[in-house]
């Protein structure tokens, strides 16, 4: 295919990605160094309340946003350098916590709290998802043919359900005296409040994520299991390999590329953990990196969005993604070079 035809085919898609992905990235980078604020002016306001004989009047100086001739708020944009990053990372408080060697104080700082949760979440769910996925794939493969269709149908449900709704459906099982909390209380014979402390919330969030992603892993591994070489399995049997050894030395190596693929996708997605925080309304106890950026972007009570802080936290989140992806990209690059 000539370059011109190739370019013509690819152009609309590339243009879309440049305009709505690459360009916003550059603009986020720029925003993170600038601060846009409304210009305030000091006005003297006299407020009077009716009183007996004379009115009681109080004069006070108030800061009010300045309006231009169209009635819009005037804003200024100033270069603040790394100030927004400093506001997000809060090194002052980090140092104070370090001086006291206090982990709990360190964990009161939003960014570090979010980072801690995001990383724990990502790396605890990963092995669970791979394990559950492989387990489900093996038992589906073991089931009679007539059962496989309905089982795959049921397995797809948690995967395609809207993430916020999925998290909510788990939340409603536990909230207040929901049936699962009631069941746990009856079993452990003690009072349980699942939404009152961080670790139970984190447990539910991880349960939700495994429930949501394990079917994806299972279906991919199930497809891989269909292509396992029967001859090598049989020769393993002849060599006296036990069932476990066959799984360990024949089946898992065969599935290895798929395991790498699922790992890659899961790392990308789990690092973006966000819907769980919304679904479980856990922001008072547990927050994630993407939720932090989202929270800066949501207008506060005065209607202001802290865009520059959001940009700084977004750029810091990006650094994490790059670190996660570098090993994968290096491998792909080597494969590509080797392939030619």
């Amino acid at each position, binding site marked *: 295919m000539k370059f011109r035809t190739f370019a013509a085919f690819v152009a609309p898609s590339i243009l879309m990605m440049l305009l709505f992905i690459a360009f916003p990235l550059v603009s986020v980078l720029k925003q993170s160094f600038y601060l846009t604020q409304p210009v305030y002016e000091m006005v003297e306001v006299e407020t009077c309340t009716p009183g007996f004989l004379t009115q009681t009047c109080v004069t006070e100086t108030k800061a009010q946003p300045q309006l231009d001739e169209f009635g819009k708020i005037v804003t200024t944009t100033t270069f603040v350098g790394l100030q927004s990053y400093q506001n997000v990372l809060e090194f002052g408080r980090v140092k104070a916590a370090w001086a006291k060697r206090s982990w709990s104080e360190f964990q009161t700082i939003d960014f570090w709290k979010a980072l801690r949760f995001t990383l724990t979440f990502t790396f605890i769910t990963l092995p669970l998802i791979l394990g559950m996925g492989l387990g489900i794939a093996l038992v589906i493969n073991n089931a009679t043919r007539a059962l496989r269709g309905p089982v795959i149908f*049921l397995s*797809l449900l948690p995967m395609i359900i809207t993430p916020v709704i999925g998290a909510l459906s788990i939340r409603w099982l536990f909230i207040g005296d929901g049936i699962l909390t009631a069941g746990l209380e009856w079993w452990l014979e003690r009072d349980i409040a699942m939404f009152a402390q961080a670790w139970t919330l984190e447990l539910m969030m991880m349960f939700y994520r495994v429930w949501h992603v394990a079917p994806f892993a299972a279906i991919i591994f199930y497809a891989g299991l269909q292509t396992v070489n029967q001859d090598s399995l049989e020769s393993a049997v002849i060599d006296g390999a036990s069932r476990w050894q066959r799984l360990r030395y024949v089946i898992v190596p065969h599935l290895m590329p798929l395991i790498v693929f699922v790992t890659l996708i899961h790392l990308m997605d789990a690092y973006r953990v966000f819907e769980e925080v919304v679904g479980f309304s856990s922001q008072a106890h547990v927050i994630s990196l993407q939720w932090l950026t989202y929270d800066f972007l*949501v207008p506060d009570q005065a209607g202001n969005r802290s865009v520059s802080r959001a940009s700084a936290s977004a750029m810091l989140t990006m650094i994490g993604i790059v670190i996660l992806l570098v090993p994968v990209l290096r491998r792909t690059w080597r494969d590509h070079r080797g392939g030619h």
Partner: protein
Amino acid sequence: MSQPRALRQPALLRISSAAFLAFWCLVAAFPIFWITVMSFKAPVDAFDANPFNVIFGPETRARGKGLSTLDILAGLTLFYATWRIAIGPLPRAVREWSPGGQVWIGWIIGALVTGLAFVVVLFGVLPPVMDLLNGIAGPLGRDVIGLTTEHYHTVWIERGFTRNFQNSLLVTTGVVTISLTFGTLAGYGLARSGSSLAFWILIIALIFRALPHAVLVAGYLPVFINSAEILRPILGDAAPTLYGKPAATIAVLVAINQPFTIWMLRSFFQNIPADLDEAARVDGCSHFQAFRRVIMPVMWPGVITTGLFSFLLAYNDFLVTSLLLDAQNQTMVPAIAGMFNMETTTTDQVVAVAAAVSITAPLFLLVMIFQRQIVSGLTAGAVKG
């Protein structure tokens, strides 16, 4: 097919395998099944600690809303009859009546007619008939399961969920159409070009796929809010404020979706032998003609599968739509977040549950119809790496 003896499994292994399978099916389906049950009950029953009270709903029954044994039998018969029609006479009628080569139109019309008839019978014909029958049937006519549809009424009619539904429809249709148009072109180009440039485009797309969406939205928001001023020098007074407009959100979702779409479509295109376009080229087609007249007709399965995943992304999105759309144009998923944030009473909570079930129902239908396409889509990207 008889298995070799050495591969036959001991009973214990077979039993534990079946047990694990049953356990997984229960875990997978239970939360969804349970919120569906909850959404039909009075608030006291829905959040009862005793599961049997949730299922049978004594409080709901006490209010005179319930189903008798006879009702349940009639309902099951209706479901069974619809199912039989859907797998027997319907496909036959579609094949007979639809114009040649346009079977899909026939399917859409057939599905709509069947669905409409089902709804009319379930809500229009059955209730009065069953009222009459329950009156004369004695013990069989007594309510056994409490069931009420009032929460759905609240969600769809009083809370204006219909408008959110229309917005969701608009956004998803836009996203699916545009991302498939751009995606098929790019996917074809990338599949047929072995150049280094194509490789780099794919890698950059992979990096873009990993970006947290909040990062991108942080880039759009200030621009979209001030777009009227930014665009005024170019477009004059017609310059629109992009914030809150469905069109802008569609463009954003298409772009976010694009990396995934081109990866998936490319792997489907690679399955189609390149000889096919070469034959078309020899016969005098240009590249674009070969693409349109020869490749696309055999690409439909791949396009449908990718379309499904684009649909899911647009339909399930919370972050982008909640930040970029104003209240007027809000889609269903962010709207429900608003519902459970203001919840104070259990009634509000059950209303939110009913909304959640309403959002899930179309997805459930989707999996029922397109199960095979979804599975093939998941494995297409993975197995070939």
